[in-house]
């Protein structure tokens, strides 16, 4: 492909033919298993160059070993996360906060936001999360013996927790699901349109909370101070957009992949149903097996990394699903063992940008699985249907029709 020429400094023998966007199993695939499809890279070198490995067709270095990903992600001085992913869809350049800030500015905002999503704060949010899960699942149980997990449970659940966090009523739920879908999986027309809509919404919400403060996330943000000053409009926007983008699709996809696994593995499903105290540990293994995010960094200077000549400006990909299948990190990485101990998986990344919402996401997943298994009988993939999965920047599962008749 002439569009994706390999830069001159990349030795030809370091170019690999694997891509999280174009390799087998990465395009929308019925009954696919895109995370497992990434494991093939472990037969190759610890680092290689993939000429087409972003949505817009850029090349990236690919780091395959968990220990090397840790090194890259822990070293924010060398590997920057400022890519303006969201803003660039609009032809603009401002960071999502704190993700796309580098130290030391990153630490200032991270410290501001950490307490809002700390493990202890999440414990206080749990009753509302559980109530939401129960309401959705009870309504599914009452309406028949089949449903689309993604449409009827995973997305509404994730979005409604997000709305609750922002202090918004549930009646806007479907609007939000639509925005999130267009933004993350839409085409070149839908994506920027959704991005603009979301921005306008966040600006409007911030203005409302400035005028009339309530006890919610956005009020906290607009009243907060960093380094003795209020946040700028751009900073408020950067935070709001990140919470929106990071919190919706990822949790929904995780729940979808997890329930798809359980639908296909009746024995494991029954084990967790009859011994629900195993779900916390099992959820960690499912996070290892089905993480959804490819983390990309930009080299801030030239560095030789495990023999690879990374040059300033090069993209470096640390795909969580690749680290999680690293045989030097996990025993039998391709076996999904719901009783696996010592599971130091990379689903939430490593380093200072460790997923800010990880504690909430973990509890969402565990509570979602607990209530699903407690309230519905043995379920399987509905005959004649096939979940469609895809790779990319954020791995996804489009549909999951299950049946318990």
């Amino acid at each position, binding site marked *: 492909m002439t569009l994706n020429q390999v830069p001159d400094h990349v030795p030809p023998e370091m170019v690999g033919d694997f891509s999280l966007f174009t390799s087998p199993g990465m395009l929308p695939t019925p009954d696919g298993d895109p995370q497992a499809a990434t494991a093939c890279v472990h037969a190759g070198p610890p680092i290689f160059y993939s000429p087409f490995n972003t949505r817009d067709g850029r090349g990236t270095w690919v780091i395959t070993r968990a220990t090397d990903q*840790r090194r890259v992600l*822990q070293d924010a001085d060398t590997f920057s996360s400022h890519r303006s992913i969201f803003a660039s869809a609009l032809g603009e350049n401002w960071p999502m906060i704190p993700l796309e800030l580098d130290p030391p500015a990153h630490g200032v905002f991270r*410290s501001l936001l*950490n*307490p809002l*999503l*700390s*493990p*202890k704060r999440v414990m206080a949010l749990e009753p509302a999360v559980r109530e939401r899960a129960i309401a959705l699942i009870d309504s599914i149980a009452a309406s028949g013996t089949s449903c689309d997990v993604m449409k009827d449970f995973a997305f509404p659940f994730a979005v409604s927790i997000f709305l609750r966090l922002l202090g918004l009523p549930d009646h806007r739920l479907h609007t939000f699901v639509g925005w999130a879908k267009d933004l993350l999986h839409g085409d070149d027309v839908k994506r920027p349109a959704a991005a603009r809509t979301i921005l306008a919404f966040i600006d409007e919400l911030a203005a409302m909370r400035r005028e009339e403060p309530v006890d919610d996330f956005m009020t906290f943000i607009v009243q907060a101070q960093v380094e003795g000053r209020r946040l700028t409009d751009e900073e408020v926007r950067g935070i709001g957009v990140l919470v929106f983008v990071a919190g919706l699709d990822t949790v929904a996809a995780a729940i979808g992949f997890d329930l798809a696994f359980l639908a296909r593995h009746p024995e494991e499903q029954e084990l967790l149903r009859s011994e629900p105290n195993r779900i916390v540990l099992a959820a960690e293994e499912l996070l290892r097996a089905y993480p959804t995010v490819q983390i990309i960094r930009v080299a801030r200077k030239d560095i030789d990394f495990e023999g690879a000549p990374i040059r300033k400006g090069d993209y470096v990909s640390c795909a969580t699903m690749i680290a999680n299948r690293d045989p030097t990190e996990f025993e039998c990485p391709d076996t999904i063992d719901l009783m696996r*101990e*010592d*599971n*130091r*998986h*990379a689903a*939430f990344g*490593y*380093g*200072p940008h*460790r997923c800010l919402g*990880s*504690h909430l996401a973990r509890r969402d997943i565990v509570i979602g699985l607990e209530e699903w298994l407690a309230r519905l009988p043995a379920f399987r993939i509905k005959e004649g249907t096939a979940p469609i999965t895809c790779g990319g920047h954020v791995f996804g599962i489009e549909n999951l029709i299950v049946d318990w008749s």
Partner: protein
Amino acid sequence: MHIVVHKAKCQGHARCWAQAPDIFKLDDEGYILPGDIQVEEGEQLPASQGARSCPERALEVDSTSAARFEPADTQPRAGEA
């Protein structure tokens, strides 16, 4: 036995806390409190499980003092940050 806490490496995953909240204490942001942790007799299993759960490798089990009866540890330690 004690746990060497490399505070600068802690990124708030809180996996240690999930394993043993009484041994691994967190600050309001959800990051581990500074200072090494002396592990009581009988808490060694959850303590080492907690230390092993750290995705950043910020916790190091130092069992050199386990064989000694003296609680004071005057040995220099490797790997202190």
